[in-house]
């Protein structure tokens, strides 16, 4: 298997956020209400963190079969919010010297980390 995970990209717009809100039943106004979100420390609407995590699952799913995925542990931090208009890309790379671990990430169009963490096999 390649050291690098196949990358997967998602363009984030209000429609995608609204769809995700309906799927997860998460109608936190920080994701949907511009006036409310503007008054929070996030200073505006942010996408659900797990939507970008879903993108990471897509990248992992291109590299691992379902049986391998069922022995995977993911540990991530949401390091930067995703805004409407962002394009986010999920990827990762096998860690040198530790073949059971991939460093995984989601980055925005400015190559800034949105999610950082690890995927560990054989958990």
């Amino acid at each position, binding site marked *: 298997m390649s050291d690098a995970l196949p990358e*997967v990209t998602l363009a984030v717009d209000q429609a*995608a956020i609204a*769809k*995700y809100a*309906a*799927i*997860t*039943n*998460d109608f*936190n*106004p*920080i994701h949907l209400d511009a006036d*409310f979100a503007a008054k*929070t*420390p*996030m200073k505006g609407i942010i996408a*659900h*963190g*797990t*939507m970008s*995590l*879903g*993108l990471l*699952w*897509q990248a*992992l*799913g*291109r590299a691992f079969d*379902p049986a391998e*995925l*069922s*022995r*995977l*542990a*993911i*540990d*991530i*931090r*949401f390091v930067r919010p995703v805004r409407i208009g962002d394009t986010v890309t999920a990827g990762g790379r096998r860690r040198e010297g530790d073949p059971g671990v991939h460093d995984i990430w989601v980055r925005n169009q400015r190559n800034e980390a949105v999610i950082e963490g690890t995927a560990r096999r054989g*958990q």
Partner: protein
Amino acid sequence: MTLRTFETFDIGRPAGEATETVDQAAVDRWLELFPEDRKYLPTVPPALLTATMMRGYLGATSPRPPGNVHAGQYLALRELPKIGASLTTTVTCVGKEIKKDNRWIEFRAEMRDAAGRDILAGKITLIWAA
């Protein structure tokens, strides 16, 4: 119902549980966002399973103050259940502290099917709004 503020959670105590069924309609909505996940059918795609765990967590901890921020996530996938399976997520507070004026809280979330089989284990780290 009492708003689930930071003070209402005690470390080590179950915060609640909720049961969800991932039906075909939910899968169809999911595939509009992530069409590549069609390859997992007739099992539930891993990312949709994660989203279902989040639905369970939200159901178990309602009503919540608006504006909570999801800061971190740990997930250990055990099994991909079939579409239509009844999945119960049990949520337990396993940590809370105030750091730099932010209310940090950590929940353990355990998803099992109707037969009690482990499906997905997780830890959810949040900054609680109130």
